[in-house]
């Protein structure tokens, strides 16, 4: 709840390495995640979004969590474990809310790695 009232990392990373916008098909809500990468680790992550408290709190928690995390680790965040780590029980449609940020982050990393490959 606190993450919802005072979200951490709300905004856009300057000179972001990768930026992705993700929609929740269930409700049409949106999240944008931007990341900066240094030495194969996520050095900064921010989000902007419109969505329910779960999605916003999740984005806030996730962006906190992944700061300093190696890309490969972040790419492989387990969805079930992640939901459990939030410490609240969610119905199936709210799980989608919580995973919105996770999906966005993973796409963000893929996008970054594709960019690197083609360099």
């Amino acid at each position, binding site marked *: 709840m606190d993450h919802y*009232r005072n*979200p951490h990392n*709300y*905004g*856009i990373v300057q000179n972001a390495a990768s930026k992705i*916008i993700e929609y929740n098909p269930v*409700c*049409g*809500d*949106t999240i*944008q995640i931007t990341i900066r990468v240094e030495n194969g680790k996520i050095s900064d992550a921010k989000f*902007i*979004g*419109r*969505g*329910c*408290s*779960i999605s*916003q709190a999740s984005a806030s928690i996730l962006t906190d969590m992944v700061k300093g995390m190696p890309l490969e680790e972040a790419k492989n965040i387990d969805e079930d474990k992640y939901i459990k780590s939030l410490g609240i029980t969610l119905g199936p449609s*709210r799980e989608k*809310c919580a995973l919105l940020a996770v999906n966005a982050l993973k796409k963000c990393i893929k996008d970054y790695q594709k960019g690197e490959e083609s360099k």
Partner: protein
Amino acid sequence: MLSPLQIKKDFPIFERLGPDYSYLDNAATSQKPYSVIRAMEEFYELHNSNVHRGIYRLSEEATNLYEKSREKVSDFINSKDSRQIVFVRNTTEAINLLSYTLGRELKKDDEILITILEHHSNIVPWQFLSEKGVKLRYVMLNPDMTLDMDDLQRKLTKKTRIVSIAQSSNVLGTISDVKEIGKIAHENGSTFVVDAAQSVPHMPVDATDIDADFLAFSGHKMLGPTGIGVLYGKYDLLDRMPPFMGGGEMISAVYQDHSTYADVPQKYEAGTPNIEGAVGLSSAVDYLRALGMDQVREHEKDLIEYTLKKEEEHNVPDLISYGPRNTEVRSGVYCFNIGEMSPLNINDLAHEEGVQMSQAIHPHDVSEMLDDGNVAVRSGHHCAMPLAEFLNVVATSRASYYIYNTREDVDRLFNVLVKVVKKYGR
């Protein structure tokens, strides 16, 4: 007046949900009384078999029950001729049936006129015809959320082949004067279709008086089971149209290279129909007729009036609601938000840096917290995205009433709403 508390006893689910639970999602689907459940059970226990062309007694019983349901429904909407009643799955299938049959005759640049408050099931089937170059036009709303009749007149042209309109909106509760619109449509030579999904369950609807060419509704919103719905159509039109689906029951004779079709309404009922669905719907019609549809409408009108009064009294911070304030043209549907969230535009997003989060409470949070307080409402676009866009909101929360709802349900809604807002600290 109805006695909702008495009525509630006829519905087994309220035993489970308890006396302090407010089911306010009736626009999505209604609960089912014992009598309807029992009618279907009895069908399985006593008469179950396939309909039509069976010579043995059991099958004649099933056929009789199925056809009696057609007559009951026919009487209920005053169709005059039960052959004008086609059983389908739901309102959605009814309108798709029209899009696939009426739609065949339409040509490039022909127009279909609908309104901005339509449910997706009265939008998407018509959009399919855009492949052929058929255009869809939308009547807009007055500031009081009623249809803008001038706009309707403006957009009705010689090219308008079909006018299709919801008699009652599932979001705004707006009740439109379909008899008047039908007259205008017919004077223009257009076919007139009524989406009656939210009207037939909640008010007296007289298909003959409206002079609708077609009228569609769903059983599950009127105490009946899911899987059964109705397309009413004027006999001559149904008779003239090509069939929709092919298969058993709908044919007269099948040869290797062609088939001839059965008479209306069988022509439109391919395959084994939802027999116990029809039996359940028949029983639902009995229940509603016994109450009287005038009474049902009066009761819901009372609830929406009470809601609008409570809204003013409670004065919940940032509460915004949608729909006509004149309850003469307003059904028992109450859509609202705690602060408005407009849809996020990707381009806006880029500029939003640093901007604090919206002060509104997201409608999905509202409904979840209402649920915690034993109030079941639905949140979302309510299958009316063009309307949400028109209203410039991502979503709304919706309370919708039916015969078993009471003023206490309305009180509970507002009491819990007040708590929700407090919890979010605004």
